[in-house]
């Protein structure tokens, strides 16, 4: 009886790991890429027969790609192309053992390169691959794209509220919090909430250390709640909605997030700046930004847009979103991304 049970389990396990590659208009499959002590989950959803793939590089560090996988994107983008949700190392459903020493930007770029190689191995070298970086994902994207020869691996890139320059990011966040805060106070909106933010910005003027940088990010996160024209979306509600359906490993997501947030990795990031290197970028680029993004203010997007050498580039701004446009203005997001990738197919 016990032997039968063990055999049954092994059969099930082997069955789960059997290679399955689907080319269809409604694919949904998961595979893992193992690299330097981490096995990173990759979910491919949507129309793989279109040969258009959009690889989402999520924010964080440590936030999972699960939060980007919504029904709306599935229906309005997944019908035209395949969306690739990659959980970075130490994030989401990615697994490993003692791999904390490998949590750094250089390694993540190598991970991304290997994920793209596996994608092409599975779905064909002739695919049109687009990289989409959001928030911290914008930093990985900027590092990847500015390495010699790496642009040849992709058809184009999409920067959505991404950060390519952390020191500049902090300066711009402070500036936007101050400007918008003073305007809101003058309009007598959320005065008691804005006042401590304004005071903090006035007393911290530059050369931010990690602690100040994190405090500014916290205020930037809070500030979105005090702008009435933003379409507010609760992450908690999103988790409740998709948790069961998408089979979230919720405790793993939480453990990974907490570890990544407290990791020394963040000190390395605080000084990272890719602005000067962006001039080598020549692939087609779409820059999407939320008008009320305090975490990565719109001026950061303009810096990215102005520095790249691509002649085929476009920047578009959503007037009703903050940092999380993918959830806050999903129609705008899907329309922009769909028209960009279809135009470059």
């Amino acid at each position, binding site marked *: 009886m*016990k032997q039968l*049970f063990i055999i049954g*389990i092994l059969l*099930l*396990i*082997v069955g*789960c*790991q*059997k*290679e399955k590659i689907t080319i269809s208009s409604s694919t949904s*499959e*998961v*595979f*893992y*890429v*193992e*690299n330097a002590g*981490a*096995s990173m*989950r990759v*979910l491919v959803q949507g129309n793989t027969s279109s040969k258009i793939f959009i690889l989402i590089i*999520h*924010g*964080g560090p*440590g*936030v999972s790609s699960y*939060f980007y996988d919504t029904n709306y994107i599935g229906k309005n983008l997944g019908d035209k192309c395949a969306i690739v949700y990659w959980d970075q*190392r*130490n994030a989401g*459903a*990615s*697994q*490993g*053992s*003692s*791999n*904390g*020493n490998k*949590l750094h930007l250089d390694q993540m770029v190598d991970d991304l390169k*290997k994920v793209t*190689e*596996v994608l092409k*191995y599975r779905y064909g070298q002739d695919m049109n691959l687009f990289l989409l970086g959001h*928030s911290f994902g914008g930093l990985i994207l900027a590092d990847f794209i500015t390495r010699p020869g790496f642009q040849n691996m992709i058809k184009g890139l999409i920067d959505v509220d991404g950060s390519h320059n952390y020191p500049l990011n902090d300066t711009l966040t402070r500036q936007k919090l101050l400007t918008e805060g003073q305007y809101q106070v003058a309009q007598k909106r959320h005065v008691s909430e804005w006042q401590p933010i304004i005071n903090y910005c006035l007393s911290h003027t530059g050369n931010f250390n990690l602690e100040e940088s994190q405090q500014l990010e916290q205020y930037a996160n809070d500030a979105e709640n005090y702008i009435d024209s933003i379409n507010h979306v609760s*992450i*908690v509600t999103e988790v409740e909605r998709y948790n*069961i359906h998408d*089979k979230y*490993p919720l*405790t*793993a997501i*939480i*453990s*990974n*997030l*907490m*570890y990544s*947030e407290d990791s020394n990795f963040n000190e390395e990031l605080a000084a990272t700046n890719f602005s000067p290197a962006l001039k080598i970028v020549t692939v087609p680029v779409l820059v999407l930004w939320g008008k009320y993004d305090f975490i990565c203010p719109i001026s950061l997007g303009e810096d990215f847009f102005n520095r790249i050498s691509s002649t085929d580039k476009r920047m578009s701004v959503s007037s009703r979103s903050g*940092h*999380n446009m993918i959830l806050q203005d999903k129609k705008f997001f899907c329309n922009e991304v769909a028209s960009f990738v279809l135009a470059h197919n």
Partner: protein
Amino acid sequence: MSQPGFYKEILRTAIFLFTLFYCSLCLAQSDTINDSSSRHINLNLSYNSSLIYPGITMAIEFPLYHINVQVLKNQKTVRFYTRGRFITGSLNWYHHPDFHDNLYLTAEWLMRRTMYSGFISEFSAGPGFSRTFLGGTTYRVDDNGNISVVRLAGYNYALITFGGGLGYDFSIKKHLPFSAVAKLNIISMFPYNSTIYFRPVLELGIRYMPGMKWIIPGNKLVSTSEYK
């Protein structure tokens, strides 16, 4: 897109609730009799799940000691229960689609209290070993860009489990060598991405007590009092 405050709050609340639950299992003043005649090996088969993710547990319990306890008030017995201590060995598995399958062995120290009514409460904790199998084909890319599939990809983890449960012992009133137990365990695996992975696991199981000497209600209890 992170909301760390929310996650930390959930974790804090969960730890508080578990602490509260286990504190409630503390014992009051009582008289005890070690009853070696009731020692027997038990077998346990359980459905083992986390939310909607199924699994199974098979366990064997080795008794260490078994004590009948009488709680007295003004020379009258107000409560009677048995207290057992066991070492258990279990083989467990759960299947979380697209994430992993986890096959884990545990050795636990188990404390169980069985009331005269048949009601059971228990607590267990112990170390273990886990082997996960990733929930999808796993690829490895070498530095030359060669891609290979990793067979039976997964990780080995050290594991610590603790949990508590409630149940009913059918041997006391129904004279059947079974008991049914619902138990909530927390398994923690490490080093998981250089941190600890916690997972709540709900066990719904049947325990078979092949060597059970059935307790005859009434008479046995009287003899316990006489002994005192």
